[in-house]
């Protein structure tokens, strides 16, 4: 995966500067130590994929330290920008379990005086979010009785919202890889190649093509590459279709939503097909979908909000007579691995959900996500594409042609 040796050129991210920025915010909030546990925080600070329960401890000054399950500690030390002396593996041994190891480390930083430790607490629809659990919190409180624990996740959320050039370039590369995956799917299923194929087979051939291009994994926790055919494309409000063993059928739609990861940057793009014979009604649905995607992409720019955009798009859908088939949301959040949930910071009316009045800014990166579903007719389409918000528009990172392809 990511290697510090690769961390050069267009994909360079100044991680020491990120840590310094966190430390400046910690100083403002009088936090002596930041104890990060969310996957997004680990990726954003360590530049390494941390699939096991892991923590980052950031002191007021100097290098952060990573803590993870010992079986993966050496790899993280190898891939992260931080040195081996700052990566610790925890094991069920005296003094080496995660609570004692981290508590000892924090105690050493604090030099046994009282202090304030920032933690990450909250909730999410995203399973691997990684907030500190209640149990962990209670154990840390017991181990560090003189420490005040304060919820400080907003430090990371604010700093990571606007993306730097290196991050955006990693996403650009992941999207280029996804486009190669889409091309491979098209080549495999065209001219009758789809016959006898299952959703899982399509997921796999896209994965193989993307891996050959350097993708690290089909990162999405929704089952990797999401493939849906037939009625599954039109599940009501559905935007999660892990591939199944369902076979592709003539006369049915096919949705291919594939994911690539490049140095913790994420590709996420969906392309849609109609397998012949194609009815006029199916083409009507497809045209509706293409029109609203095109309009959405034209509308995204700095200054708009999720709610203003949704209102505009739903008005368009109503006018055209397909509002009943639209999910009235047009985005989800995205950042380095582990950050795949809400837009912006946690400042909306419902805690930890996207603030509908969030004002998009230049160099925010989001997934433009559109779901069109008509369950009664067993048809639906999905659009997902990482976009970079610009002053007067947006840059869609996947360049794969926006069409609903009819295949024989």
């Amino acid at each position: 995966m990511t290697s510090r040796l690769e961390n050069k050129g267009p994909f360079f991210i100044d991680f020491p500067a990120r840590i310094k920025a966190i430390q400046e915010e910690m100083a403002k909030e009088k936090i002596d130590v930041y104890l990060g546990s969310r996957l997004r925080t680990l990726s954003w600070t360590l530049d390494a994929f941390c699939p096991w329960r892991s923590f980052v401890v950031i002191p007021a000054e100097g290098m952060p330290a990573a803590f993870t399950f010992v079986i993966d500690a050496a790899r993280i030390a190898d891939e992260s920008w931080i040195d081996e002396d700052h990566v610790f593996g925890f094991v069920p041994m005296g003094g080496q379990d995660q609570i004692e190891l981290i508590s000892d480390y924090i105690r050493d930083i604090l030099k046994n005086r009282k202090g304030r430790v920032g933690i990450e607490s909250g909730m999410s629809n995203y399973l691997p979010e990684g907030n500190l659990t209640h149990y962990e919190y209670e154990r840390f409180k017991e181990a560090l009785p003189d420490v005040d624990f304060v919820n400080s996740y907003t430090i990371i959320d604010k700093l990571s919202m606007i993306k730097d050039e290196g991050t955006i370039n990693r996403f650009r590369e992941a999207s280029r890889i996804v486009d190669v995956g889409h091309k491979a799917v098209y080549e495999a299923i065209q001219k009758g190649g789809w016959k006898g194929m299952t959703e899982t087979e399509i997921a796999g051939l896209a994965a193989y093509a993307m891996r050959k291009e350097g993708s690290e994994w089909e990162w999405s926790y929704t089952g990797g590459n999401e493939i849906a055919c037939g009625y599954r494309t039109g599940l009501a409000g559905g935007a999660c279709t892990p591939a199944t063993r369902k076979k592709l059928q003539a006369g049915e739609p096919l949705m291919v939503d594939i994911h690539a990861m490049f140095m913790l940057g994420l590709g996420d793009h969906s392309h849609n097909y109609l397998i012949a014979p194609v009815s006029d009604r199916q083409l009507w649905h497809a045209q509706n979908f293409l029109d609203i995607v095109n309009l959405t992409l034209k509308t995204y720019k700095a200054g708009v909000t999720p709610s203003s955009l949704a209102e505009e798009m739903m008005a368009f859908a109503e006018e055209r007579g397909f509002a009943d088939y639209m999910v009235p949301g047009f985005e989800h959040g995205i950042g380095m691995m582990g950050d795949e949930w809400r837009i912006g910071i946690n400042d909306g009316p419902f805690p930890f959900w996207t603030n509908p009045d969030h004002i998009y800014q230049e160099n925010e990166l989001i997934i433009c996500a559109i779901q069109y579903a008509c369950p009664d007719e067993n048809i639906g389409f999905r659009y997902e594409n990482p976009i970079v918000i610009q002053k007067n528009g947006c840059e869609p990172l996947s360049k794969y042609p926006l069409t609903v392809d009819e295949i024989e």
Partner: protein
Amino acid sequence: MSQELIYLTPQWRDEAERRLKESLTPEKMNFITSSMSNIYLNCPGGGSKFLFFKFVDGKLDSLQVGEGEPPEAEFKITGDYETFAKISRAELGSQKALMTGKLKLKGSMVRALKLAAIADRLNKVLSEIPAKY
């Protein structure tokens, strides 16, 4: 030698140093540079003691026995005197002592894993010293 030495006395230390230098060549010690302090709590007669090892390029550079604060070391292992004694008498495995929390290790586990086999070699030499606990 067959005379039993009292564990952690200067005489025991001297014998330990002699045996370690004789048995553990730099090759056998993988040319490591590292240090370790064993902290013995609840020693006979009360109080605590330490046993400090330092290897430089695989050669034993320092072996100290003492009371009070041990020298700074890469690894610090803390436990009851009786736990260490059981390990030395081969009545308890060091891994099991760590995994049941009878011993506490401070230091990088990643580094410790690399040194586990070397530590076993070292402990084996020490366990062969005829000793009274």
